[in-house]
């Protein structure tokens, strides 16, 4: 008869999904952007990514061995943190930088809170902001695409200095033919990866679309030389917005649970990103915006709780 008649308690519907599966699918969805990064910035991009991943996984492994906890490195979450951190770095950084950053990401961003599922902040962003504050010179020196010896500024940095853009065509922004971080420049590759996650149903439209839409709207209204003159398409295609909106602002743990909460989260991120880009001292605000909204998430969750059936 075979094993078609299985007698057991509920649940009776099984799915193949598990945390590992989701995590590793995210890793796969990041591969297009990784390949693009290597094509545009050279093999350094690969070494940096591998260094970050190795450091992240090792840190988690050592920590779990030392504290005699269950070894969870195979669930893929440390790998994701390593990859995302590396994608937020310029291709010219010395190899010790992603290693130190990855260790910081894992320890301060995740392990001190108790590990997977407990972190308040997105670990990769915690690491990135730490690196930016600690070694600003390395973190803001970008190489020209397809030529690793010449430095060039990112489009947003040029914009922040008030210089005319000499206009970088939108197509160049879309395929990543400009200075920037390894994983953020090639919008095309990022969208392919995001499509994979959407098809699988692992991320929903709420956060990414409200985030991007809000940023674009705010830039359109306030970002130009007068009201309603902002170049919203330029801003959406520049900097870490696409990478952040689809892959980091959608972190399951550090973002609100309910749809309403997620929309609030997206709007908050959008406003903060736009405000920092327009008036702040830094050219890019995505990392800070997401971290600040991560901090606000416990509150958002509290006030957007779904009504429990039967309660008042």
């Amino acid at each position: 008869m075979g094993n078609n008649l299985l007698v057991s308690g509920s649940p009776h519907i099984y799915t193949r999904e598990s945390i590992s599966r989701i995590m590793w699918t995210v890793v796969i969805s990041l591969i297009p952007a990784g390949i693009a990064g290597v094509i545009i910035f050279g093999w350094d991009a690969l070494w940096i990514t591998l260094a970050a991943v190795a450091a992240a996984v090792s840190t988690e492994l050592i920590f779990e061995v030392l504290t005699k906890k269950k070894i969870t490195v195979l669930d893929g979450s440390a790998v994701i943190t390593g990859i995302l951190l590396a994608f937020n770095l310029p291709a010219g950084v010395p190899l010790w930088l992603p290693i130190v950053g990855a260790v910081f990401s894992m320890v301060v961003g995740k392990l001190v809170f108790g590990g997977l599922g407990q972190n308040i902040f997105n670990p990769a962003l915690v690491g990135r902001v730490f690196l930016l504050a600690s070694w600003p010179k390395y973190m803001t020196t970008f190489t020209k695409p397809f030529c690793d010896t010449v430095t060039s500024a990112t489009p947003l940095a040029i914009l922040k200095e008030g210089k005319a853009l000499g206009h970088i065509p939108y197509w160049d922004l879309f395929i990543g033919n400009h200075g920037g971080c390894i994983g953020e420049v090639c919008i095309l590759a990022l969208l392919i990866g995001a499509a994979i996650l959407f098809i699988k149903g692992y991320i929903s439209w709420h956060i990414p679309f409200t985030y991007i839409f809000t940023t674009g709207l705010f830039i359109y209204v306030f970002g130009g030389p007068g009201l309603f003159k902002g170049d919203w398409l330029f801003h959406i295609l520049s900097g870490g917005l696409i990478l952040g909106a689809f892959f980091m602002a959608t972190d399951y743990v550090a973002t609100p649970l309910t749809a309403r909460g997620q929309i609030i989260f997206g709007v908050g991120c959008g406003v903060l990103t736009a405000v920092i880009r327009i008036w702040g001292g830094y050219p890019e605000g995505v990392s800070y915006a997401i971290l600040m909204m991560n901090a606000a998430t416990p509150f958002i969750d509290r006030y957007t709780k779904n009504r429990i059936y039967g309660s008042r």
Partner: protein
Amino acid sequence: MKSLVHEFTKGIIRENPTFVLVLGLCPTLAVSVSVVNGIGMGIAATFVLLGSSMIVSLVKNFIPNKIRIPCFIVIIATFVTITELCMKAYSPVLDRALGIYVPLIVVNCIVLGRAEAFACKNNLAKSFLDGLGMGVGFTLALVLISAIREFLGSGQILGHTLIKGFEPPFIFGMPSGALLVIGLLLGFFNLIKNKKT
């Protein structure tokens, strides 16, 4: 005699005001950017602590209970003002470095806390030693934190570069780094304490 020595030593480790009692953190984090500043603040705070503990212990029987806190504050503020003026006169560089945290010694939880918890209940000798011990403990804590922050944040200690080619992470000179260092240190000392019991 043994109890007198105990009053002094308890402030250094067992009841260290920074790491065990977790008091007086505001100036600790703010001035611990360099060891020089840490030592300066430590000495200033110890002076105020000693002076106020001694005076409070001397006049404790003459202060009505209801207004004892304002009286303590007046006594402490007097010593702080003396410290402020001396610092402005003899080491203006240190005064500028420590900034608003010198007058803030007057509301430093350590100083007021010791006056309230100890000096007004004990004799002169014990209060003197208690103040001294707490002051030394506070200074040692300041030096430890400043050493870590100065080394990590600028690669130097007391202005001397220790390791050539070390690129210091600037964050340790910033507020965020200070909070991180104290958090990790407190966690570290907790770990030791838990292992002991």
